[in-house]
């Protein structure tokens, strides 16, 4: 990479010094907040500099829209009464489907690789716009019914001092920034018009409707330092834009809390507390200590581990417990979240525990799946108790029932689904789909059901067939490692075979393997293991797995795909963060702080270079 023309100021106390090299490399591409007021492009008349600043190595940061979760979390936080109550239309929370028409909802999101916050996958549709409108009407209706509660005053008695003042305050919070004079005037004028046509209460309601349908609420516009802020004049035309304090607050808030900034965070922005790396680190550290961080951190991990797949499956597993999708499936998802929450949010915990911990929250309805008998614990319905699961049977999130059943077919363990998950989510090496001219049915070989055949043997075709071998040499060992867990997630010493319907036969299980195949990173190739538990311990200590986790988290934090080019800033960032993360022993909080104080997180690249050399 060309030597950049701007170097990072050496006042960088919170970043590890070995980051310096990487920061040098990206300094031009992603101008940091503390570099203000360094000019970027326009002051550099010579041709090479704008080139160096072009997008060859930095992907654009596209305009992000609030995800469904962020939208509802934000509404919840914007409309809370002084005594902490929120809107009834938001409670009970949005269920998946088949809900009553009074409840707020948005249509299903399009995700990219499971991430709803990836702006590149966010599509607008007529139904989405309709729902923004209808939800706004429903919110406004309830505000009208409980107007004294939400406003804390009587707007009919004092229209401007109560009603209009509420709308101004709400707009500032919903749009996550101070209002311009024009915006205040427009708000006041609409308020006056609506009062004249309807009533003061309706004017407040229509104001609410407008505020939460505005692009300033629904999107995260990041205009950076614009000409309205004269001290930064000259920066606006640059294709790399440092964020304003308020924009930074929004990024932090939606990344760490998955919701809108609260009053404290907006105050930090207002006071200019988000303009240096040190202050960002300090504010972010406080945010990690907030209870809201549990929600925020869980949201990333739910997307990373595809907890969304734990839904709507009906299990009919031969010789085993049956899953009741209406009772157990939601509990399995909750169990995964309860398992993850302390590991990912408490200081001093490590990444490896996600893949190895055997301390698992247990619910009475789930004990069957884990084959545990705990009468002395007196598990009551609705109560969760931490139990220690047998360390030779379980290790971390990927041996929980939810994950195992979500990555099976309805009736059988599915080594391919489980293996592909491991490659994609733990090693960032998702295999391509099978070629279309391959007959994928033969691998399951149900037609030859005369001889007892283990699940593993049924998939032997994958590695016998040359067309399949390239990918399945990598996929299958990861999948076979989980053969002790059936489609319901039950650990069984032997597997049931149903070839002869009159009698279940029990077959030996071979869960051992050797990691192989070009998709598997070099250092892990050739590693052997006895079963999933041993494999997961190997992976938990692997620098490659730490690196892949960093890649997923950075992608989530930036709301876009990463540019994988060899000189790409993203790659350099991930590489450096991964090295630090691994050397820290998988300290999750340090990693998060390193991300939020990185250059790409605190700046934005517009979609096109609009500056001519």
């Amino acid at each position, binding site marked *: 990479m060309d030597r950049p023309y701007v170097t990072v100021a050496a006042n960088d106390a919170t970043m590890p010094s070995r980051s310096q090299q990487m920061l040098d490399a990206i300094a031009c591409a992603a101008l940091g907040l503390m570099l203000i007021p360094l000019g970027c492009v326009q002051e550099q008349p010579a041709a090479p500099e704008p080139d160096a600043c072009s997008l060859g190595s930095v992907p654009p940061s596209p305009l992000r829209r609030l995800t469904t979760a962020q939208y509802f979390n934000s509404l919840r936080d914007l409309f809370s009464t002084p005594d902490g109550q929120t809107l009834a239309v938001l409670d009970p929370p949005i269920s998946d489907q088949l809900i009553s028409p009074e409840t707020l909802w948005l249509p299903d999101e399009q995700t990219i690789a499971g991430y709803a916050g990836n702006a590149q996958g966010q599509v607008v549709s*007529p139904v989405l716009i309709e729902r923004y409108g209808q939800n706004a009407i429903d919110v406004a209706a309830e505000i009208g019914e409980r107007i004294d509660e939400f406003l804390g005053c009587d707007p009919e008695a004092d229209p401007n001092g109560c009603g209009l003042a509420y709308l101004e305050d709400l707009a500032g919070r919903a749009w996550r920034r101070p209002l311009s004079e024009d915006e205040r005037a427009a708000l006041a004028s609409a308020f006056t018009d609506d009062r004249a046509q309807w009533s003061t209460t*309706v004017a407040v309601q229509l104001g609410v409707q407008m505020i939460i349908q505005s692009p300033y609420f629904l999107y995260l516009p990041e205009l950076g330092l614009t000409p309205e802020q004269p001290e930064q004049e000259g920066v606006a035309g640059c294709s790399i834009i440092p964020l304003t304090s308020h924009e930074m607050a929004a990024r932090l808030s939606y990344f760490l809390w998955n919701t809108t900034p609260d009053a404290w965070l907006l105050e930090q922005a207002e006071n200019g507390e988000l303009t240096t790396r040190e202050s960002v680190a300090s504010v972010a550290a406080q945010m990690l200590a907030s209870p809201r961080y549990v929600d925020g951190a869980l949201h990333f991990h739910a997307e990373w581990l595809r907890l969304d797949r734990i839904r709507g499956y009906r299990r009919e597993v031969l010789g085993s417990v049956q899953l009741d999708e209406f009772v157990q499936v939601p509990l399995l998802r909750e169990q995964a979240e309860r398992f993850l929450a302390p590991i990912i949010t408490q200081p001093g915990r490590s990444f490896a525990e996600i893949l190895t911990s055997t301390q698992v929250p247990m619910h009475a309805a789930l004990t069957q799946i884990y084959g545990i008998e705990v009468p002395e614990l007196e598990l009551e319905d609705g109560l969760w108790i931490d139990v220690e699961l047998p360390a030779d049977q379980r290790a971390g999130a990927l041996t929980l029932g939810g994950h195992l059943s979500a990555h099976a077919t309805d009736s059988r363990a599915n080594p391919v689904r489980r293996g592909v998950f491991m490659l994609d989510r733990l090693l960032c090496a998702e295999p391509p789909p099978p070629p279309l001219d391959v007959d994928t049915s033969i691998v399951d070989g149900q037609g030859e059901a005369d001889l007892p055949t283990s699940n593993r043997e049924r998939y032997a075709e994958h590695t016998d067939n040359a067309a399949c071998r390239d990918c399945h040499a990598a996929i299958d060992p990861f999948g076979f490692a989980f053969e002790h867990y059936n489609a319901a997630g039950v650990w069984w010493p032997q597997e049931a075979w149903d070839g002869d319907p009159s009698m279940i036969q029990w077959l030996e299980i071979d869960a051992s393997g050797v990691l192989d195949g070009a998709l598997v990173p070099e250092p892990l190739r050739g590693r052997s293991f006895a079963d999933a538990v041993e494999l997961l311990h190997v992976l938990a200590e692997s620098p490659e797995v730490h690196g892949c986790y960093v890649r997923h988290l950075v992608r989530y934090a930036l709301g876009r795909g990463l540019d994988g080019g060899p000189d790409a800033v993203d790659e350099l960032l991930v590489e450096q963060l991964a090295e630090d993360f691994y050397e820290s022993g998988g300290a999750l909080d340090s990693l998060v702080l390193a991300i939020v104080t990185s250059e790409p997180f605190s700046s934005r690249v517009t979609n096109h270079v609009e500056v001519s050399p």
Partner: protein
Amino acid sequence: MTTTTLDRRRFLTALGLGAGSLVLPSLAHRDRLVRADPTSAPKRLIVLFTAHGCVHPAWRMRPNAEPEDVDFELELAGLGEDQWSPCLAPLHRHREQLLIVDGLSQVSAYLDPHAAEPHAQGHLSALTGSHNDEQDKEPRASGPSIDQIIAQHIGCPDRLASLELGMGLTVNPISYAGPRAPLPVELSPTRMWERVFGLSNASSDQLAPLYAGQASVLDRVDQHYAALAPSLSGDDRLKLDQHRELVRELERRVVGLQALECGVVAPPDPVLTLDYEARHQAMVSLLAVALSCDATRVASILHTTMPGELCGLPGQDLHNDFAHYSRSDPQAIATMTTYGTVHANHMATLLDALAAIPEGDGTLLDNTLVVWVSELGNGEHAFETWPVVIAGGSNFTSWRLGRYLRVAPSTPALAEGWQTAGVHEADWPNDLAGTPHQKLLVSIARAFGVSDEDGELVSQVGLDSATTSDGTQIDLTGELDGLT
């Protein structure tokens, strides 16, 4: 809102929603209410979309043991019900309204250089005729789907352009507003009701100003979009402009849907509609009413793999344990034949609902083209033997209904050794593939009068050609022969 007593009784009956209850039974001898002038009746399109294609030997009709390499057609009226194939027999009662097409293939799906896994590939290709334009490995169609092309062409600006309905958790979308722009699928009849009938059924006086004021609210919101867009560049501005355009459309739609005269339509019972068949019935009933009062003109209904109990196998995994063996395993063949029969019943129920609503001199079905297709040709991931059942639309298409149309494979070999990949028939003509499915999409577009920039009827939907492994170009343009 004004409502007559008759309306109320009529629609409450229609939406009683007992599983299997006949839709709108009282309508046959009622005065038509919606459209007095038959020439003014709008054209409509419904796409019914089911999974795993068909068990072709149990779907095809060969009453005279016609060989596979011969084109032929049958008058459906000339066949006794017992001569119908098992998978199509439930449609016998609609025979005069049907045009069954046997012999199309998604050949371009086989030839996609960026092919996704076969289900996703079929879902993105079937209605768009396009290739995979993946986004960060997420499969996406590279162009709009036929239902959306039609919706853009015939939709009213103040009504819903289209409805995308679904049965079962959606795995892959089928309807695309444009490249990489899949539309979300509605799984709940309750939510569907709210979208279509909610505005015209909003009765509370307290809420009236909120609905009435929404138009000026959207005006004000529009000013924010106007102010914000210029500060953005490139794709971001485009994204916001699209949003803004949809907000403007919503402004018109709020007015249009409030003025809708569909009568009082009761919302479906969320508990009753937990049942699969009752839910399908509810969606179909609501859709028929929505079309009849011109709330929308276009809809797709996307079924994913149906639950096992509908085929008499409660709790079983029809996709992985049956569909994948539906060429070889006798039990799988029998089950997937039943599967096809159950969906043929869904198609028949949909046609019942449309045929029960009088319109002009005929029924709603005469002004509604219904097309039933799938993402695959069969459960073993073939794109050949792509099953197509067309119905209705006789008032505006010039297609001759009441026929079974067999188009023998005539497309050159797609790849070396390709000829029998995934296909059931031992007697499949060597080295030939079926007729490209884009031709059906073109015929549909033309039936609705969709024209290109030069004002000519379109001759291409999706791709214009595909290249085989030996470099042969397959032409994907032009109409499907034999429909008229």
